[in-house]
């Protein structure tokens, strides 16, 4: 029995009464993806398939009975192999994916920086994407206008904001995404390995910014394969394995156990910053 229920391990370690200042509570959540194996689901192929009894839907259990609590002001790191369900967990917290079973409770305004970055229409300019993304995320127009210059300045993209985003390099994409997410003054910041795209200078800058945010009373969830940054930024961490929460502890122990499990050792590659 390796997989522990988080609440069991966490409660004695943390001084908080359960639920007292919990910002994110994930209760026994499972997420099952039901995906069609067709490249593009169409009406035509559905009709043509009617006669035959072919299975075209596959179920993937991406999360299995995960429970955890994230406290106000804490920085939670999530590590795990590819396909372990980290992104799924974060998207469930963000309210993008509904849990198949269980319940997620989130207190506060969430800002996300997920693996896909900002921008939903590459033909729109950076400015339009920032405004539309912000409005969709629930910010008011005034808040956006107040933040806009800050966002652009941090991303250092002053000259590019009126260009269509298809003309951006992937690093510029990443910078804008990071800048939007951290400058929105969220109560909760969810980051899914979106920090690795910038050049060395921007990486340093975003790391500093993360430090600053972590020091404030914000709740941050950080998914990263850069174990070094997990150790440096987080004050608690979890290790996901095949959809299950395998371990929750302090970042050092998690990184140690995880690297031992992967059998790679804590070398330059795994510890690389952000």
């Amino acid at each position, binding site marked *: 029995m390796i997989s522990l229920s988080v609440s069991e391990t966490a409660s004695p370690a943390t001084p908080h009464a359960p639920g007292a200042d919990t910002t994110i509570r994930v209760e026994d959540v499972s997420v099952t993806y039901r995906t069609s194996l067709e490249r593009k689901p169409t009406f035509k192929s559905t009709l043509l398939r009617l006669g035959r009894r072919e299975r075209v839907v596959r179920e993937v259990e991406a999360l299995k009975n995960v429970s955890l609590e994230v406290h106000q002001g804490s920085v939670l790191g999530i590590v795990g192999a590819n396909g372990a369900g980290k992104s799924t967990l974060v998207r469930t917290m963000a309210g993008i994916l509904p849990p198949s079973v269980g319940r*997620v409770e989130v207190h*506060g305004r969430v800002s996300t920086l997920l693996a896909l970055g900002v921008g939903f229409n590459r033909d729109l300019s950076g400015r339009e994407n920032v405004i539309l993304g912000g409005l969709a995320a629930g910010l008011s127009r005034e808040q956006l206008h107040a933040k806009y210059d800050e966002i652009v300045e941090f991303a250092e993209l002053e000259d590019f904001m009126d260009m269509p985003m298809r003309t951006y390099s992937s690093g510029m994409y990443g910078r804008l995404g990071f800048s939007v997410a951290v400058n929105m003054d969220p109560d909760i910041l969810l980051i899914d390995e979106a920090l690795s795209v910038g050049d060395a200078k921007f990486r340093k800058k975003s790391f500093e910014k993360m430090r600053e945010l972590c020091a404030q009373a914000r709740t941050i969830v950080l998914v990263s394969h850069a174990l070094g940054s997990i150790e440096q930024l987080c004050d608690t961490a979890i290790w996901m394995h095949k959809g299950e929460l395998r371990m929750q502890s302090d970042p050092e122990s998690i990184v140690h156990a995880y690297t031992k499990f992967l059998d790679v050792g804590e070398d330059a590659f795994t510890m690389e910053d952000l």
Partner: protein
Amino acid sequence: MTTEIETTARDIVPPGEGEERHVEWEGEQHVYEPHRVGIPPLGPYVRELWRRREFAFELSRTTLRAQHFETAFGQLWLVLNPLLLAFVYFLLVDILRHGHRPHGFFAHLVGGIFVYYFFSGAVRESVKSVTGGGRLVLNTAFPRILLPLSTVITAFKRFVPTFFIYIPIHLISGLPVTLADLWVIPIVLTIAMTAAGVSMFVAALQVYFRDVKSFLPYVLRIWMYASPILYYANEIPNHWNWLLKANPIGSPLAAWSEVLQKGHAPPPVDMLVGLAWGAGLLVTGALFFMSRERDFAVRL
């Protein structure tokens, strides 16, 4: 295990106490529970929708800006298409009618095509509103219904200048200008409701069947022929009369023509049938969309 039981116990706490606990979080609280095919709690949904209404307007503004809607020439361009279509149909219908056209027929045709263009434009644009929402749908939690609603707003903004093109045609045709002409406002509103309902329906359907988009032009073309645009509602033979009632925008279009051509209030039955269709489709379209939207992020 014990934690589990505690959790359940906390959930049964009367709502008053629960609220008190959340005051310190300054309002925002989200609970996500499984209801993949169910309808989400309506109260919070509508509140979120209202809070983010600016998004729908901004999206519509951005779409129009991309089409150079703000320049005079851009507006002319948008008007040109339905106007040319009106000329083509005028030629066709005039030949079929052996030149016997009632007084004001061209105005009827142009007016009808313009409103129909509002309806079909909203539906045609909205069909890809969700599937084209891409990363925004994948990365942000917001009421997705804003996406098809935004296309209805866009279509409406494009309809307004066409109405101003209609006015001189109306006047040149010598049609009456009366106070009853104001009936066009509720008529356009019922059509907008129908358009919104159908838009939501096709936008959700497109996620599951990506070829809805390719069927749609045919459906919309047939729909237009089944509506009293190329002919007057009172010319419909008796055994086809049911079609007018069965067509959600049939009655409003009949009323539209009646008001503009004759300058008096439309028959109440047309307004009521139109309103019933509009309200019915808006509610069912919205409920269908909402019951499906939690599934979109996985399907894109």
